[in-house]
């Protein structure tokens, strides 16, 4: 049964249900799309408040998760813009990304997130969005094209370019580490 069909049967649709079912994915997306860790919670709020305001306009043309991801991508883009204006996106210190045993779980979480951010921040925003949604979030290309409101071929093209850029970036990182 599709998510949409499940949703159809769970009525009335309310904010809590949406949140319970999709908050984890929205949170992850925002963190991976370059929203600073300290601002992710605010960005999640913004996504669900936007969804709450637009719930009546939601016509189920796409799955609720796709709809929410579409909102999240825009919120993340705004967050990236405003944080870069405020200078919050500082280069990640090498000491944070250095490998080594860290007993503190929270620190470990932050460290891997910084590591991911360090690599993905080198990609152009459009390619980064598609790579995160397709390869990290495992959404299908059709879902990504619905969420980003771009053509399917554009998704494929950005994904191809994004992967190629990422490969180059990763190659550089490996060399740097070695």
């Amino acid at each position, binding site marked *: *049964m*599709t998510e*949409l*069909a*499940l*949703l*159809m*049967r*769970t*009525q*009335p*649709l309310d*904010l*809590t*249900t949406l*949140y*319970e*079912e999709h*908050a*984890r994915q929205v*949170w*992850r*997306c*925002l*963190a*991976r799309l370059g929203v600073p860790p300290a601002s*992710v*919670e605010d960005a*999640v*709020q913004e996504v*669900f*408040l936007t969804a*709450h305001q637009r*719930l*009546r306009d*939601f*016509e*189920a043309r796409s799955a609720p998760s796709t709809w929410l991801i579409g909102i999240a991508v825009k919120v993340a883009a705004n967050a990236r813009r405003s944080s870069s204006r405020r200078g919050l996106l500082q280069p990640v210190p090498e000491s944070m990304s250095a490998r080594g045993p860290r007993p503190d779980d929270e620190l470990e*979480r932050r460290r*891997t*997130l910084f*590591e*991911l951010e360090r*690599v993905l921040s080198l990609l152009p925003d459009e390619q980064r969005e598609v790579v995160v949604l397709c*390869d*990290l979030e495992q959404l*299908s*290309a059709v879902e990504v094209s619905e969420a980003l409101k771009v053509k399917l*071929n554009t998704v*494929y*093209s950005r*994904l*191809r370019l994004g*992967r190629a850029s*990422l*490969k180059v970036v*990763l*190659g550089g990182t*490996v060399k740097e580490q070695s």
Partner: protein
Amino acid sequence: MSDENEGPPPLSPELHEFFEAHAKTGEPTQAELGRALLRLHGATRPTRLSVGGRRLLPPEILAVAAVLVLSVGGAFIGWRVRSANAQTEALSTAKAAWVRGDLEAASAAFEACSTAECARLAAAVKRAKVQSENIAGLDEAEAGSLLALDRELSGGARSVMGDRLEQEALPEGSEALFAAKQGNVMLMAGHDQTKVISAVSAFVHGSAIASSSPELARPLLKQVSELVPDTALARAAQKKLESLDAAPLEPKPASPAPASPTTDLGTLLERAKEAKKEKRYKTAVSLLQQCLQDEPNQPDCVVTLASTFATRGSETDNLQDNTRALSLYKQFLEVAEPTDKRIERVREILKGASLETQGQETRNVKTQPSDWATKRAAEAEDAYQRGVVLQERDPGAARLLFIDALVSSDPASSTQQKARAQLEMLEGDDSVLPASVKSQSRSLYLKGYQLRDSDPAEARRLFHQVIAWAPGGSDAQKARSRLEELDASPGLEPPGKSVARVITLAINERVSISVKDVSRTVIRNSTVAEVRVLGADKLEVKGLSHGEATVLIWTNDNRRMDLLLRVSEPARGAMGLLKIASNPIGADVIIDGKATGRRTPVLPSDPLEVPVGRHTIQFEWNGKKSAIQTLDVIEGANPAIRGEIPQ
């Protein structure tokens, strides 16, 4: 096919490793999610109600007061209503029975109630009982009517019949399914339930009779816009109305031919081609049928109609349309001038279709026409036997069963003769004839009339159905004449079934398939698997959940091949966790028909563990049961389930 359609190349090992390493990066903790939820509630909750600028009590206190007033008032009103109106109770009992799929109980409850409304619904449920025996065999109009009845009785809630209709009878992309989904969306968005149900019902009925009785369809479709203005359903109804206004009125068999047929045929053909180009297929078909009515065997009209059916058939995966298209292409070969340049192309199309039926692929599964005929004959005999059993007790239901037997059986079979004899015995007893039969038989006759040239087999079936429904009516007499005409002309053989290749894969498994010259694909049951075209000669399918899906593949030379995907059950031991709530709380949770020993609410801190795969879930509270919900549990997923128990 351009490079752009090929999709990205496969992941290189280093990228794969990178993504694997970061599969969980960015994942929030439970505490972070909980904190954000609390903030969200705070942001969406009014801190204090105010009216006209004057502040009132905090909402919590108002809510408690409201609950108290509603409980006391509700109990009093409930007692008054229950004691004063037992009929209403019968109605709600019947509706609850319908929701849980007990049509026998629903029918009995309606019969216990003596109002006209109950009588109407009792007749409708009886008809539904018969139809439910073979839901997959219903055409879109029948399924749409049944869906409208389901919406009326279930009040928009989930029901067993609704589930079966969605899964077995309503093809993806059908208007009835679209209306049902839009109805649910409107209910979720807080629209008035009565208006939504009426609007969905009007849309489904209006759409079903749009081609056969546009005059009747117009007021129904207008009603949709009035009931639920500014909605997707209203817009769809408006669009349909516009296409009806553009199309000519229903065919008039007795009217004389126009004065200048050549000019009119040319205009009709042009309009039809334009309508086809704009994907207004119903209008195009209607215009072309009118063209053929004026001049049967007109090659341009025949081939354009065939092409219209083929296009619509391939877009909606409608077997009936594909069958009609092939019949028309064959007809075209017979009527076209030998010098006609289109003959070669039509031969190629027919050759492609014939190749499909021969089944050259390995590991093929072929639907045998003989199996289908045997099954249909067995169903007919079964319907006849059930009719005999019910004849004394419920002549109305028996009549419907005999009609079913008559329609399903071979004209020369003994079942058909026996069913006909039984119907003749019942003939004249008008009390057993449902009120809608006359309009239904008229609609069927018109449909058969329209199809008599393009799809004689279907037209025969419809004419037989008209005769069976109201043997003494004028439509039946006309249908007999049409049948005689059809019998006098040689019929065209329907094409064979398409061939399927079977691929078995596990959940999350991706399989690449080589297919030459892929033009496009359509997947049916996309919840089970997904398909990607990786290039002109390569497809990739991925299993999503346990079950079966079909991928329809068209090649550049317009041949079709079907892939049957079987996604196998997940490995034993894989579990999913469920959070469960119900209204009212304290209900027993029943999974796959077995009590789990758990009661709602099942909280996230102590979730219910169930094996991965498809399950049914039901709630029981105080002897009352909720509707059955179907659930696909995915490994590691933690979905929230909610149940509503009728009070």
